[in-house]
């Protein structure tokens, strides 16, 4: 029983990062009808941003988090300007291909700048282990979960209760009408990409610190898992993607703990296969592209 609960706990911690990466990805798709294949690179940029911040600025955790998120946001805005804005509204596969190209370029750019080997990130959060009965959790795991929780709650609040959040929902549904009532759709797009990048960046900082390393290709696996989350959850409600992200983390942890840890990354793909076979078109049915 204790093993089960421990794995569930571990899974929730990691799952929270899947959730926020998936949320950002899903948000951009809902609002802009764009599958941003460079989204995982925002995650990677966050981790490297954390590395650079620690190296050149400060080792204070909040500073590192801010630094990482900032770098991710900058990368996000560059990607938006270069690969998304010029193609918005065109034949739907074009942004997919364009962002794939940018993603590819960014990965190898990171490889060129930082090398092909993972870069070590010193622990800026002291390794403290908390015990809750038979269960244990590290401080960094808690911090990771807290950051993700704050971001998720913040996003939900933003979308439901703020003027720009409303405008974002309006643009997601009917961009022309929103524009006719005064909404600057380009600005909303930039804002949305910025938010998605900030969230992915925060996840990147968390994972980078948790695993004490950053790597040019670390986005690949994360990107695909968040992509699976989005496919499974559909796009109707933000909450769905969050829940699926957490569930995926838990599922992975359980498989890792009870079956074999080498299959951990395969869980997402197993889910993907099942979903594709069972409901190939249905999950995107709510937003016909």
């Amino acid at each position: 029983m204790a093993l089960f609960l421990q794995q569930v706990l571990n899974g929730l911690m990691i799952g929270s990062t899947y959730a926020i990466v998936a949320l950002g990805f899903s948000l951009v798709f809902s609002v802009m009808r764009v599958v941003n294949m460079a989204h995982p690179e925002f995650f990677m940029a966050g981790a490297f941003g954390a590395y650079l911040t620690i190296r050149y600025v400060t080792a204070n955790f909040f500073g590192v988090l801010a630094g990482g998120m900032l770098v991710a946001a900058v990368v996000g805005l560059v990607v938006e300007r270069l690969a998304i804005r010029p193609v918005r509204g065109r034949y739907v596969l074009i942004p997919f291909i364009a962002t794939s190209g940018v993603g590819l370029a960014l990965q190898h750019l990171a490889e060129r700048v930082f090398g092909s080997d993972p870069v070590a990130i010193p622990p800026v959060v002291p390794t403290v282990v908390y015990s809750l009965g038979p269960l244990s959790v590290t401080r960094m795991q808690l911090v990771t979960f807290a950051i993700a929780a704050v971001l998720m709650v913040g996003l939900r609040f933003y979308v439901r209760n703020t003027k720009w959040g409303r405008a974002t929902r309006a643009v997601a549904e009917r961009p022309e009408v929103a524009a006719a009532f005064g909404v600057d759709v380009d600005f909303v797009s930039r804002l949305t990409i910025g938010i998605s990048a900030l969230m992915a960046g925060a996840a990147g900082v968390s994972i980078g610190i948790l695993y004490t390393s950053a790597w040019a290709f670390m986005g690949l696996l994360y990107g695909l898992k968040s992509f699976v989350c989005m496919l499974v959850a559909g796009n109707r409600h933000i909450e769905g993607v969050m829940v699926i992200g957490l569930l995926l983390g838990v599922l992975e942890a359980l498989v890792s703990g009870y079956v074999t840890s080498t299959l951990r990354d395969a869980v997402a793909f197993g889910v993907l296969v099942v979903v594709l076979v069972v409901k190939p078109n249905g999950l995107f049915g709510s937003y016909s592209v």
Partner: protein
Amino acid sequence: MSDLATFWTPVLITAGINSIIALGLYITMSSGPLSVAHAALAGMGGYLGAVLTTNFGWPFPLAIVAGMALGFVTGLLLGLLIVRMNELVAGLTTLGFGETMAVIAFNIDYIGGANAFTGIPLRTTLPLVYGVLAVILFAAWRYDHSRLGYAARATRDSTVTADAMGINVTWVKSFTFGIGAAIAALGGVLRAHYILVQGPEDMGFFVSVGFLIFVVFGGSYVFWGPFFGAMTLTILPELLRFSAQDRFIIYGILLTVMVILRPQGLITRRSMR
């Protein structure tokens, strides 16, 4: 003279193999669907061919045929799966398929798992590659002017119209997918027997994107396009002494720029006249 040969032979062989796989992608995409699974299809062919020659001592030509058969069947099934999907979901499905294959390969120890399948005998030579490439180019040329080729292009332009014209869209899409996949698998077998290693890292989405760029850059409407794209983009970086990372940075940027500014590629049917 032999220095030149030792430098250029690998480059030319790689360019030739890339052209073959690119042509496979071209045929698949000629009926419409975007495929980012072709690296995985090539890899599957590579794995099967390699296992057959290395572990079972099969003669190389038979291994090639087996690889192509696997590619064709897989491609056909994949094509059938995506026939009714809208293009974005179809593309994403090929993405999912490719990545799933890569993960499966990663986890099967019999074929090497994470450490890749090694010990493959060297069977691929420069004349062989270009001999095969010549055959494929000829086949692609005949394809472009065949009824299937026209049907595929009609389907690509508009499924609804093609349907109304009496074209069996389902059959055209899946059959072209199958053929394209078989050719990609052929490329994969050749590659495996040249590099002598077949691993899961060559099967992923971004590797497929690397092949996509040959088609998008070179031209997706005429068979010369992917050939031109693959040859140019494989050989030019070598000529210019780009490092591996620079090459991919350029590929990525080029893909983005091309798809935004000239999605039909450099070589179109009009420019051929």
